[in-house]
């Protein structure tokens, strides 16, 4: 029947529990990355985000070696790298991008080195690098939800403070806001977001989920909260569309989600090209 032809491709994938979990996980990542990604786009933190995402690798390896939760290991590695970047920058005369570059490549290489030393683990490296949304367990899902809700609550509570420190840090400091701590807080939220996205899109592609939906929304709006909401819409749509595409075409899910987000970015860019000059 005609209706079945239309509906089955949408419903059939959801009869598999791994697809149900995968879809939920992808949506959570779509939402959280979209919100934090708005700050990443506005604050010019894309390279920093990329660095932190790469730097989780040694944390994952060490956590795996000592038999601890790999997400905790990933988070700690990201934080240590962020601190290290600040330290290198303050000690030397390097510009920030060079400090970021040195620290994250170092961390990434250390991660690869550690993982290559455990032969049985080598298969899973691609899962870390590119994600494997269909392998998300119920326990993973619970952890991702908890992380996601915490991140969103903090952004909601500190909306006003993060807005001021992002738009006019000089006024923020003059009126007594702890600018350094708020900026560090933002980096911690960014690290947590990357950790949340690890299993869905992997640590290399998570940056795209931070940037693409927020950059798409940025072209369409004049207010931060508006940008965040639109970004969430783009993030969630790319998560759902990408996951279905990967199911129907039998391609990697993380890459399908990211490509959907990037294509939406270019469509909006073309449509709004004349609006803003």
């Amino acid at each position, binding site marked *: 029947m005609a209706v079945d032809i239309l509906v089955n491709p949408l419903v059939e994938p959801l009869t598999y529990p791994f697809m149900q979990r995968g879809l939920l996980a992808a949506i959570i990542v779509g939402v959280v990355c979209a919100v934090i990604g708005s700050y990443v786009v*506005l604050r010019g933190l894309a390279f920093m985000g990329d660095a932190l995402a790469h730097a989780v690798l040694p944390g994952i390896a060490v956590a795996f070696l000592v038999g601890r939760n790999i997400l905790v290991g990933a988070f700690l590695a990201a934080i240590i790298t962020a601190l290290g970047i600040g330290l290198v920058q303050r000690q030397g005369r390097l510009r920030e991008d060079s400090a970021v570059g040195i620290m994250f490549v170092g961390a990434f290489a250390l991660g690869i080195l550690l993982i290559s030393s455990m032969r049985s683990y080598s298969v899973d490296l691609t899962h870390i690098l590119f994600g494997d949304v269909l392998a998300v367990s119920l326990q993973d899902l619970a952890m991702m939800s908890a992380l996601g809700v915490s991140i969103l609550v903090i952004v909601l509570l500190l909306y*006003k*403070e993060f*807005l*001021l420190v992002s738009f*006019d840090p000089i*006024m923020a400091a003059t*009126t007594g806001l702890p600018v350094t701590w708020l900026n560090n807080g933002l980096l911690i939220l960014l690290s947590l977001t990357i950790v949340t996205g690890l299993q869905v899109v992997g640590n290399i592609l998570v940056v795209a989920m931070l940037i693409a939906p927020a950059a798409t929304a940025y072209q369409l709006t*004049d207010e*931060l909260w508006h940008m965040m909401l639109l970004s969430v819409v783009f993030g969630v749509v790319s998560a759902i569309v990408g996951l279905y595409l990967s199911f129907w075409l039998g391609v990697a899910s993380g890459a399908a989600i990211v490509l959907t987000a990037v294509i939406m970015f270019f469509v909006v860019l073309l449509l709004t090209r004349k609006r803003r000059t």
Partner: protein
Amino acid sequence: MGFVDAARERIENLTRANGNGAGDGGPPPAVCARHVTVKRGDMRVLEDIDFTMPAGQMVAVIGPNGAGKSTLFNALVGLLPVTSGEVELFGRPSRERRAADVSYVAQRDEIDWRFPVRVEDVVLMGRYPHIGWVRRPSAADRQKAHEALARVDLADLAQRQIGELSGGQQQRVFLARALAQEARLLLLDEPFTGLDAVAEATIFGILADLQREGRTILVATHDLNTVMNHFETAIALNRRIIGYGSVQDVLCSDILTRTYGGQLTMLRATDGSAVVLGDGCGHFG
């Protein structure tokens, strides 16, 4: 050379710190800097800054690029650590001031004008120090922001994205923010960059208004024409305070030469006459 000696003596009078009002029982001065030195690495970017500025004054800070005008502002409000010396604002150490006391309007290029905020959002930021952490702006806060915007005559642009406004309108938005903040001291860093004479005059109208309300205003600018036409008092700065006093006295060639390092400067007064700075202070039609 009686003339040179007279000029030198006048400079010395100007350079000497005026006594602050602490002794005479009046209100504490808005700004009191005592022997402030700021080092960046081994370089002294500010040296022995010592001045007192009574509340309710509007003073221009002049000096060439790199003279330390922005650094002075940063040091006054505690954004930069002071190597030695101390700063008091309204009779209290700068660090212990109320959060809303100072409104600092940074140079244009410190702001990302494409940032997704509307004009009314920017003005509302002035209420943040009054609102405190986590809490949302109330209807009363929004009302105050709206009134402030109306006072700078921009109520009809409230919904515009901040980057869509002209440079002069943007500066007025930041003045409205200072109003909403109920700031007692305003620091404006090169607020007239890129503005035409009309926009500049509009801003001075608002500044005069703010001054009449008793607010204290410090304006850093490199434009001596603006200073001559709109200010009564000026500070000449080049790492040190070279002169502090009435504009006629500060815009005198000896002080300007020491501030600008001998560059020839020509000023044009409102009446069209030109002041050419060669020897001494001359006024030529």
